[in-house]
């Protein structure tokens, strides 16, 4: 299917451009502005060149060490999140009923965690994970595990991971389920005639058809887990120590806690660029795969 060249298509895109630019341009410019200036007193700014950036990218400075530490934690976290949520989401979407009365109720139940405002998610897990009055924390301790999400860094990290898996695997399930439902029955019938195994049906039919929804799911999950803020903020506050101090948490600490706007702005720009670069690489890889298949 060849697309036709038509520059009047810009007219169709214009409303989107205007609305998104309105909200995106000024805030981004403000951040850029702060990142190259330093504030003396109240509102006297002076040009500070690339100093904030040099500090930030040099791990031997205090801010540089913090940044690289938070970046590393965040990358590992996002990687583990994708590694768990994507296969789990696909597997569960295959297990969901495809017709009958159970479809509606199961979809609603699965979507519930996503529909709870983020600070409520944090608060409910804060209590749920407590060893004295929360079901989850108490159960783990009864099993003989030394679990305490506010004292022990390992517990804290796994709690945040578990919250994310609980909160967002439903997104992968819903997208993947919808992708599966779009596969015509004829494909399955053909596979049955060929006596294909369940595994090869998955590899040869289902997975290729899911590619596009999975790109959406993986990119959304990567971005959101890379920007994770509310859950660690509410549940662990970034601690204990800095076990769950992800980039957003550190950023807000610097910007609002220390009112160090220059450092914070430089940091958010670098952070933003890293996210964009990673997503771009991923996005290009996936679309190239698409092109290869068409040829």
């Amino acid at each position: 299917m060849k697309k036709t060249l038509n520059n009047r298509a810009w007219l169709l895109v214009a409303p989107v451009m205007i609305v998104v630019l309105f909200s995106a341009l000024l805030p981004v410019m403000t951040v850029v502005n702060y990142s190259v200036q330093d504030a003396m007193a109240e509102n006297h700014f002076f040009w500070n060149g690339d100093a904030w950036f040099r500090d930030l990218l040099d791990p031997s400075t205090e801010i540089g060490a913090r940044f690289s530490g938070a970046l590393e934690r965040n990358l590992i976290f996002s990687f583990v999140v994708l590694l768990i949520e994507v296969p789990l989401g696909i597997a569960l979407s295959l297990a969901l009923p495809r017709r009958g009365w159970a479809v509606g109720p199961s979809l609603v139940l699965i979507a519930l965690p996503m529909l709870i405002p983020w600070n409520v998610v944090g608060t409910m897990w804060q209590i749920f994970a407590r060893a004295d009055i929360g079901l989850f924390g108490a159960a783990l301790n009864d099993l003989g595990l030394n679990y305490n999400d506010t004292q022990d860094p390992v517990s804290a990290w796994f709690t945040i991971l578990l919250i994310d898996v609980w909160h967002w695997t439903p997104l992968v399930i819903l997208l993947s389920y919808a992708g599966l439902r779009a596969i015509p029955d004829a494909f399955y019938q053909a596979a049955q005639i060929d006596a294909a195994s369940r595994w090869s049906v998955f590899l040869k039919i289902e997975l290729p058809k899911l590619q596009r929804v999975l790109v959406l799911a993986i990119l959304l999950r990567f971005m959101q887990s890379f920007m994770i803020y509310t859950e660690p903020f509410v549940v662990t506050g970034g601690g204990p120590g800095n076990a769950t101090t992800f980039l957003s948490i550190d950023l807000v600490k610097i910007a609002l806690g220390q009112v160090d706007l220059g450092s914070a702005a430089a940091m958010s720009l670098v952070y933003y660029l890293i996210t964009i670069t990673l997503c771009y690489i991923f996005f290009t890889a996936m679309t190239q795969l698409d092109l290869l298949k068409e040829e």
Partner: protein
Amino acid sequence: MNRGILPKLGLAVYLLCLLLPIYWLINMSLRSNEDIMSGLVIWPRHPSLVKYSFILHDPTWVHGFLVSLTYVAINTVISVTIALPAAYAFSRYRFIGDKHLFFWLLTNLMAPTAVFALPFFNLYYAVGLFDTVWAVALAHCLFNVPLAVWILEGFISGVPREIDETAAIDGYSFPHFFVRIFLPLIANGVGVTAFFCFMFSWVEQLLATTLTATNALPFAAVMSRTYSASGMDWSLLAAAGVLTMIPGALVIWFVRNHIAKGFALGRV
């Protein structure tokens, strides 16, 4: 397809794990604060709906709930409406800068809201929209519009071009064709997109609370008040949390058939 018992069992176990924290929230909402703090209680001993009735009779809470619903609805309508023609353009035409524009739209999904909260406040204050539902509705467009364009583009690409061409030959004008013929074809896509817009706008709170003060105080901001006075009112917060699940659950119930009909995001 012949499927064994194992997938069903796995699904059941998953659903159980998924519902446990939600059950705990409901459990907490039915108990008093002293009872919550006193120890682990699997089944509430003296369940009471007093917190729910408190919320439903308090004008601040009710107002907050209505405000949240209003900006979410406005945002969903704006996002879907302006995303439709744009998604059509991306799906059907090549034009100068199309790929870059598409990726630029996506980058807005990656803006860390924690960073942009303060500049957003300045911006909406300057244009006089601060403390209105419009400020929140527009701010949420930053991530919902790109997402809507992306999802709709997939659905539109799944509709054969021949339909557009036939309609043009039959003498339909573009707007007429788009609304009368094309929209019904992608109704599933519109339903699914509306659900995602609703969801992401409903759960986002950082911007919603930053951009409002008193007139348009969203539910989430009212909720954060329970943090301050005399410690934490856990059971009130839990009751409010349970209530926030209801609108979303209703929306997904309405779009369940669209999701169940499936979408592979086009070009199958």
